């Protein structure tokens, strides 16, 4: 009986067949996925990347809630045309605190990975409220309720605790001050200890309504931060070819 005949064992015993299939498939995982967790050369530490502030995190939650990812990707691929249009290609490290990441491939609208600081807060407010008032042919829906709805900061600390379990370095201090930091970042007044906890975080009245922290404040704070954490003037492209 040659070796070829042995497949009769698999064909006649479904459990053995399933185990065999699992072993074959796990080879793919072992070779293609597992090494990414330990290979030094695939894990890039980049200066400037920090966990999201509570306000940005709240904005990110609204981004997910409203399904912005259905039309917008957040990854500039390392392709010529993308770099020409959107700027420096995205680094894996730039989404290291994203759970889950927003890379995506659906692009009914432009990629948003570097949209931070590209437009003014006023533009973002008006665009979220009524995209066609600025871009007549736009197919993006309006989100007029964001500016009218006060931001719920009650569960931010809990969300941060969960992210901490997943490896985002939120300290106990950051978690306990979540609501305070969220309110501080959404005002033009001195944000206090915010930038001590979150270096280079920008605080201002993003949403435009004085005295109220709205969902628009959170979402615009998030959008204006996207792609701005890494300073590409000092990032060494040549040393990081991979």
């Amino acid at each position, binding site marked *: 009986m040659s070796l070829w005949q042995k497949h009769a064992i698999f064909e006649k015993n479904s459990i053995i067949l399933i185990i065999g299939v699992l072993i074959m498939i796990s080879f793919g995982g072992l070779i293609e996925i597992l090494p990414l967790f330990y290979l030094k050369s695939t894990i890039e530490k980049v200066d400037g990347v920090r966990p999201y502030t509570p306000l940005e995190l709240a904005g990110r939650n609204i981004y997910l809630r409203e399904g912005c990812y259905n039309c917008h990707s957040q990854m500039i691929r*390392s392709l*010529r045309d993308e*770099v020409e249009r959107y700027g420096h290609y995205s680094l894996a490290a730039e989404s290291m605190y994203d759970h889950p990441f927003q890379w995506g491939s659906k692009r009914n609208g432009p990629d948003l990975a570097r949209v931070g600081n590209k437009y*003014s807060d006023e533009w973002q407010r008006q665009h979220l409220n009524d995209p066609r008032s*600025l871009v*007549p042919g736009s197919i993006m829906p309006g989100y007029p309720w964001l500016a009218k709805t006060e931001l719920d900061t009650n569960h931010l600390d809990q969300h941060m605790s969960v992210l901490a379990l997943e490896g985002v370095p939120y300290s106990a201090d950051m978690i306990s001050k979540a609501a305070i930091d969220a309110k501080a970042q959404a005002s033009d007044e001195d944000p206090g200890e915010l930038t001590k906890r979150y270096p280079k975080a920008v605080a201002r009245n993003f949403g435009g309504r004085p005295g109220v922290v709205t969902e628009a404040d959170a979402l615009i704070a998030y959008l204006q931060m996207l792609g701005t954490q890494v300073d590409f003037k000092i990032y060494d492209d040549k040393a990081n*070819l*991979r």
Partner: protein
Amino acid sequence: MSSTNPNVKMVDSHTGTATTGHEWDGIQELNTPLPRWWLIILWASVIWSFGYVVVYPAIPLVSSFTTGMFGWSSRGDVAAELNSLKALRGPMVNALNGATLADIEKDPKLLTFARAQGKAAFGDNCAPCHGAGGGGSKGFANLNDDDWLWGGKLEDIQATISFGVRSGHGKARDGSMPAFGRDGILKTAEMSQVADYVLSLSGLPTDKGFDKAAGAKIFEENCAACHGPEGKGDMALGSPNLTDKIWLFGGDKASITEGLTNGRGNVMPAWVDRLDDTTIKALTVYVHTLGGGK
């Protein structure tokens, strides 16, 4: 692939096809091999994969991975592609970088190139605010008329694009309109009078019974410092001409009163850090030649 006894070929009497010789409860399995073309593709892919593994990065090792014969990487690849794009555009880009803005407009070939590049960059970066043709919208300046807030000469436009307006950049164009109502500088009645006065400056209809002298007085005391005694504006401060019937925020009384109440000062971002010098130059020429360049 072969039958139990390779010497005896069993053939199914109904179909005339050979069987594998397997038998389950009297049912036999027909032996229909994979088509030849399919097998050829399979084996060709297997052979191809060996070549791929040698040429491209493939096998994970202990702390690194095999980098392939030529050390290919996707990041290196895009850098090379961008360089070759630069080389392709090289002569024109160099000419653009070397020429002054005025010279670019005098040289038809350079002008065509600059406008083409400017147009593409305008679509990606400026159109969301200024409109696809530069026509602007409420609060976002029209760029194809000859009414300029900050100056319509090439150098003025270049400075506006580079550093933005109220953008927070150190060299940004700055100066905003105070919030006369919110900050309690003017009363509601005074705001109404001066708003009517502003309308009268360009001959627009005003409310009945409006006291022009009183309006003029409020204007002189509160507005003339920025908008000029005749309301003709001041480009150094970005305060618009109020006499020309061209409105940034709208020429009806409600819009004017809204501005008086909450102030005005729309932001245009700075582009020096986002776009390279050549692109900004091309954009300058593009905007200048949209129709209203001075």
